[in-house]
């Protein structure tokens, strides 16, 4: 019988180093370590503010005064608040219409840009301009464009003899809603168009050739080749677009401040108005938190709903 003995000293010197090396050899541990900085950033700048916002929504915190837990009081109170309910309607209407228009026009623009044309790179760069300009600057430009007295649109239509008085773009509730949607669509189209253009360029021309050989019409090629192949990127872009539109603040704040008579107040602008100028941080946070279910629903719908593989592969849904 042979006995192998190791000195205790040598064992203690080797085992930690060895165990650390073993640990670092473990891909799961290493991945976790590499993710730590990103995780830290997410916790500090995303999870903590979100958690704080959710907590504030359950308190009656005011500016300069810590609040106490009030349960669902803020939400209960908001359900009886006509301005809040109007802002929910406005937000859903604004997001739905603006998103549909941005995707319709963005896809159309992407298809046009996907064709061969002179100065293609230059035109693509120009298309991005609305997205590059800071929102607040374009919002101020739209404020002038829609001005009740100085609107260039009204002026041009007057000069052409098509109208006999300036259009009240921002003074009539429905006009104001459509006007801010138009501004949002103008700004959002480039983002959608460029993303979809990137998607279009990944589709292999051989698929179109095969479809053409099979005698598919343009519409059939679009319906059965382009759309399914675009769906993965479309669902991602749609998710982001819905999130950006639903939480829009700058455009409304610069153009209408939520007027006339709160007809363009979105949940984000109302949350700000109540929390900061109004001093009711708890209620403002509750309004902001009330946006989360809508956002989660929209995200799940666009992410999972549009990524159904059978549909992408040209089959009918279950």
């Amino acid at each position, binding site marked *: 019988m042979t006995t192998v003995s190791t000195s205790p000293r040598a064992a203690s010197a080797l085992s930690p180093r060895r165990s650390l090396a073993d640990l670092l050899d473990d891909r799961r541990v290493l991945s976790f370590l590499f993710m730590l900085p990103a995780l830290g950033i997410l916790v500090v700048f995303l999870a903590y503010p979100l958690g704080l916002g959710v907590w504030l929504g359950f308190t009656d915190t005011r*500016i300069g005064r810590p609040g106490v837990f009030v349960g669902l009081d803020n939400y209960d109170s908001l359900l009886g*608040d006509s301005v809040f309910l109007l802002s929910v309607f406005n937000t859903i209407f604004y997001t739905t219409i603006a998103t549909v228009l941005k995707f319709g026009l963005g896809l159309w623009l992407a298809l046009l840009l996907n064709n061969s044309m002179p100065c293609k790179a230059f035109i693509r760069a120009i298309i991005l301009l609305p997205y590059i300009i800071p929102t607040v600057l374009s919002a101020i430009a739209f404020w002038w464009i829609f001005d009740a007295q100085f609107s260039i649109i009204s002026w041009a239509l007057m000069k052409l003899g098509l109208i006999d008085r300036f259009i*009240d773009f921002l*003074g009539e509730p429905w006009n104001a809603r459509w006007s801010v949607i138009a501004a949002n669509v103008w700004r959002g189209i480039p983002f959608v168009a460029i993303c979809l253009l990137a998607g279009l360029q990944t589709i292999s021309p051989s698929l179109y050739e095969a479809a053409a050989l099979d005698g598919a019409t343009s519409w059939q090629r679009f319906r059965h080749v382009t759309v399914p192949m675009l769906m993965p990127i479309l669902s991602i872009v749609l998710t982001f677009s819905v999130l950006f539109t639903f939480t829009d603040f700058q455009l409304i704040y610069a153009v*209408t*401040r939520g007027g*006339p008579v709160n007809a363009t107040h979105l949940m984000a602008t109302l949350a700000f108005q109540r929390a900061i100028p*109004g001093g009711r941080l708890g209620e403002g946070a509750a309004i902001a938190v009330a946006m989360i279910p809508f956002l989660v629903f929209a995200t799940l719908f666009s992410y999972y709903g549009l990524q159904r593989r059978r549909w992408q592969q040209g089959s009918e849904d279950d």
Partner: protein
Amino acid sequence: MNDFNRRDALKVGAGAVAGAAIVANTGEALAQAGADLKLTPEKGAKLRVLRPSKFVQGDETLWMENTKKYQQQTGVEVRVDNESWEDLRPKSAVAANVGRGPDIVYAWYDDAHQYPDKLLPLNDVYSYLDKKYEGWYDVAKKFSTRGRNQISVVLGSPGSKMVYRKSHLAAAGFNAFPNDFPGLLECCKALKAKGTPSGFALGNAVGDANGWCHWLVWSHGGRMVDDKDKVVIDSPETVKALEYVKQLYDTFIPGTLSWLDINNNKAFVDGQISLTNNGISVYYAAKTSNDPKLKEMALDIEHANYPIGPVGRPTEVNLTVPAMVFKYTKFPNAAKDYIRFMMEKEQYEPWQTASIGYFSHPLKAYEKSSIWTVDPKHTPYRDTMKNMLWPSYAGSLGYASAGVLADFIMVNMVASVCSGSKSPKEAAAEAQKRAERYYKV
């Protein structure tokens, strides 16, 4: 209250402390104590001041010059941030909440009453200025006082008056501005008939819309709350005011429902409207312009007090700028001394003059300033703070009043009637419901 102020004032400054025993015993000496305030800025003091950005150039130019003078006289380093009007309130609110930021904020309306516990009492400065400059107007006292303390010192008010084109009114058959409501309605109808209509902001405009909508309702006897903070806006008086405004709105230029604070200025200067409510800034812009057309317009611009309504007395509200010092400041004496310095006649009058009275004073002594008589067109703005009420009239200033004002409940009520979306009774009932959310116990 006075005893407290004086006693508090004596805590500041070595000279005042030395005389405290005597001062406390005689009324005359007490009065003297206020006028002898001596605040010694801390060694190496540095101040950061946040204030509203200029609406007229003279305001900012003289403010910065006065600040420079203060720095030269005291050695205190002062950094002034001129913040856009809309961003001032959020920034001061954030400072209050996080306990860091500017030492002094020249804020809006009742901001000080939203976070009174975060503010340094300014009883000594308040009391000193009260004695030296013939006392504060009642509304300035209201804005400054919270319980036994003065939590702010009012700098002044960018007052709003009726601004009109004299020749346009004359053409419409009015040689003087009407001073009652029936007269105002007739005047506006006549102006519209002549193609030179009036226009008053009805969008979510902090200054102009709040100004004339509150005046309209108060002048008929309506008010958001009574003196016990009970919401009473849904009243026959409010309904009468709203019935009146529906007729008045029909005479406005189209588009006023979307107007923010700047729109009426633009429309007036462009000659599209001949009557609105505004500060003296329109006149200032026209008078100081290099454009001959605007210079000519300046000669035609006149100002008048708001007409008196059925209640029989002035019922105006105007933007008010209270100076606040946050408790977190490391240099409380310097901060208070800076506020005092800017309110002293040597600085205040030149500053007022440079902005041709854009800011009306809260201290009675400044009624005599030559700026109010050098041009008769300035004179209506002189009594802005003398006549005005506070935005939560007749109730108290605080969380609820700030919330109601920020939520534009009064403006929205008037605007919803003007837009035709609600009847006067429905609008008053809705405003009652909305305001009760803020005033609930």
